[in-house]
């Protein structure tokens, strides 16, 4: 059976690497959304077997405003699917190691992010994978976590 997997990721290199990694280990139709906004379209109109979600997005409020890294921008997607009772498992894939922000200080490790998401979104959130584009090992971890998440689903 072909799986439907959505990648929500603004970094094109990372998105393609994740896609390659998924396709090399399972039969899957992979669609990528380059922004949170575009992810809504996919979530509303299709049932997904799994979502690979980036957590930190680069956002610009509007033309001419500073770009900024929003440490927990990806959480918006978890809020949406949780509220809409969409029972799709989510694996977070991040290149960052700290997620602290002005509003939410203290999330200074991947472990703390994992604890937070597990606590807030137990129905959807499965695990977090640290992506390091300078090497390959993270791909195996991602594959393993995806398979594990799909099994539990």
């Amino acid at each position, binding site marked *: 059976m072909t799986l439907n997997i959505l990648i929500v990721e603004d970094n094109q290199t990372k998105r393609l690497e994740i896609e390659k990694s998924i396709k090399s280990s399972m039969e899957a139709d992979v669609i990528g959304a380059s922004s949170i*906004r*575009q992810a809504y379209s996919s979530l*509303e109109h299709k049932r997904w077997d799994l979502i690979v979600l980036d957590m930190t997005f680069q956002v610009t409020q509007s033309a001419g405003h500073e770009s900024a890294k929003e440490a927990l921008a990806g959480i918006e997607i978890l809020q949406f699917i949780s509220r809409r009772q969409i029972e799709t498992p989510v694996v977070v894939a991040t290149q960052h190691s700290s997620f602290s922000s002005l509003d939410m200080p203290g999330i200074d490790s991947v472990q703390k992010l994992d604890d937070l998401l597990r606590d807030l979104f137990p129905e959807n959130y499965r695990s977090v994978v640290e992506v390091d584009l300078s090497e390959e090992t993270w791909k195996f971890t991602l594959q393993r976590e995806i398979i594990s998440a799909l099994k539990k689903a």
Partner: protein
Amino acid sequence: MIFKEFKRREAALDKITNRVEKSEVWDRYAIRIKNGFTIRIAKARELEKRIKTAHPSKNIIEALASGAPTENRRQYADRKNRSYFSISAAVNSNNLRAQHLVLESIADPVDLDLVSLLAVGFVNYEYSGGLNDFEGVPDDEFSIIAESMSRFSPERLESGNYIRNLREMSGDFIVELFSIFDSHFLPATTSAAVTFAPVAERSLELFSKFKRETLDIAGPDIATVFQLISDPTARPSKEKFAAMRELADDWGVTQAFDSLLFARILGDCPAGKSFILEKILPTMLSSRNRAAPDLEILLDKPVTPHLSRRTLRMTYIQRQLAITSRLKFAIDRGNAASIFDCVVRVFCFDRGIIKFLDWPRITAAIRRYFVVTPQSTFVTMLLSRADIKRLHPRASLSMGKGAFIGDLTALLASGSGQRQGLNRLLGLIKGLPVQAATALTFAVLDRSIIERLAAALTPRSGWLNDFTPGESAQISMLRISALRDAGVRRLISDAAVAKEIESEVELMRFNYFQSRMRIGRVRIPWTEIKAATRTIVNQTAPIELVESLVSQEIRREVIPRLVKFLTDSITDHILYNAPVSIDHALSNNLRHGIVVPRFLRAFDDALQTVMRRRTLSVWDEKELRQIFHDDSEFILRYREFVSDEIKIFVEEQLTVSPAGQLDPKIRQEISTKISQYFEGDTSKKGRRLETNVAKTAEKLIKGALVGAGRKLNEEKRKALFTEFKAVRKSTKNTTNSTTKDFLDSLETNLHEALEEVRQWIGVSDEEGDAIAFKISEVIKLELLTTHLNEWKKLKVTSEEVFVKSDGSTVSKFSIEGKYLELFEAVIHNLASNAFAHSGDGLKTNLKFIFKLEQDKIFIRAENLISQLKIEDVIAGHRNTVALSRKQIGPEARQDKKSGFQKIRASFAQVFDAEPTINIPPPSDKNRLFVVEITVSPIPRLTYDA
């Protein structure tokens, strides 16, 4: 209120003055203290007036809540509106960093240390001086210092009863309150030091940068009270509550205090509950409720406040108690529907209280309740508001904007026809109470929400990239239509609708101009190329002449030579020589300050994301080392690599040269067309020669640019990201998270730059008349194109004036769309020159003046030259003038020192008239570099005015 408290203190001061013996201390200090106090009273009177003006609302909670930090920062940064109660801004900033932002923005940097000293009352444990250390400060400040010292550490005061007695001005409860600070600084031997240390730290941070203007008027005490009462982590004792309320009473803000206290007891606050039960409730509850043994039982059911027989109307605080107790009742029972209803009621009663509600418990109770109603949507909307997010980050994270969109999409019916409009949604919102409906309408009509809703309502397939200009226009239309509907339904005022629509229309206009620059930037005036071709043919070998050659032998001999000559003339003209040549267009539209800067901007933007407080990015090794440490070397080297790679690409792919591939191809094709033209039957030629030549050149140019775009997308992309991977490897072991963040941003930005430039590389397909534009729009467009993330910080200003035929002038006017490219070229070249040669880079102070008359245009660009560069500019003035006066030649298509030539060529192309360029000699006195351009005669450029 404030004034009343000061009067009380003044009376106390007078009493002390009359009682104590006159002494040396009196001579030295007392007069100054009295004078200072008089000054403070005068300021207090002024402040009270200002507060009244700024906040006509009787409810001070409303006033406090309206102190959004952003607004506050802006007001103070602009120094325009000082009618603002600074305390509210700081008190309402609920975390240290936010407080810092507020305080840094409202306090003058030079005051920070002094303010800090004033605020903590000089109890810093390292400080051991006395009042004599402050001889130089003004009297009003001195009086605060004296008063503070008398409160905090009278032992440090010099002998003499007078100053010690100042303590009486405050009273014991204030002294007790301020012991919070004392205990923090004194050795931690008391239990108070342990209990209040975190609060003291927070408060110290708060006051350490508090604005002097606030402190010297109001003093830190009442601010502390509000700080404590609104801090959910603080746990004051019942006694402290009593002391704080007494102080609040002195300042006339009891109602605000009680209001916050009631909001607070919805959470875990036993001392607060106890205090309310014993001290506040008995005065306001009915006898039935008063009989309840404790507050928990009391609040187990909605409280019925005691109503005065005379008025039979509940006071503000009684009404608040009734609503909040109902909310607590609902939260305790996990009754989500009732919680939604109560929160809406609380909001309508007093929106200032909303952020103090117990959001963690509210969220826990409603998260698993999936029935979506306008009330539930209103509550999820509140959870995505900035003030609640700041005070209750965890609760906000669990729902927030995503849940809000979830509720909105659920509220919209699933039928596709209904989904396209938001009218139905607005109809549902209309069912809410007015205040809630208005707030929810504004939230729904926010552009970021409309964008998300539009995305959610539009099915897509394949890879999803960010929205296109067309989609942006659709979103604008959807928003405008929804705003109108909201106006018709009276959900928001006509004025608000008009304002929002105006800003949306502005955005649409801007997107329109920007989209012109988005795809296919190379604009080649084919009509003029055709005309030039026709002229060359007619002047060299008109067809009648060729046809007059009867002898085949002569034809065989002459025509190839003619073809060769014409081919070279036409090709050279089209590709290089004409002011409208293809290489000229490539230089103007892509090479000159456009492609390479776009890639370098990727680095600037990435740097911006990791150094948000910096004003401009500077690629200085020393400075970078401070940020990236050892990684700076790799980053700098990579930047050079990208710059070199793109420069090579530009030289190879975006330049036409006789040695390149495009030149011989075009030459060959044009030669074939001319041969066919001379050989064929002229009566059946179909398209004319110039049209054939232009079409051929266009086809080849388009093909060449498609090839260049492909090369950029494939070969260059691969080269850039292979090297990027190497940089990642080199910095792999870094412990500096800034490097990681920077590289992450940079990677995204480089992809964006590649995509954007790939789209630029193409021939513009624009047809028909462009819409009219304002000069300010072109300046904005130019700055956005090359300095997107910096343009708001650039110091570029402009003045535009149109002189009417009767001599009167107007500053608002539009120019015919067909002149857009001319203005783009002029502004681009003048701005590039200024940034490149001022010595200040993007920090250059640049001012444009445009003066349009009936048949004349005058443009003046003036910029400041840096101190370091001024001598060079003065020395090079003669050369600069020579460059500006040079007639249009091949230099116009160069990419360096060609700005003036490009400006000349642009005017020549549009008006057939070259401008006069005047560059007055700069002096090292004013360091001003001025370029004045005058063109006359010209046709009328403006539409309106």
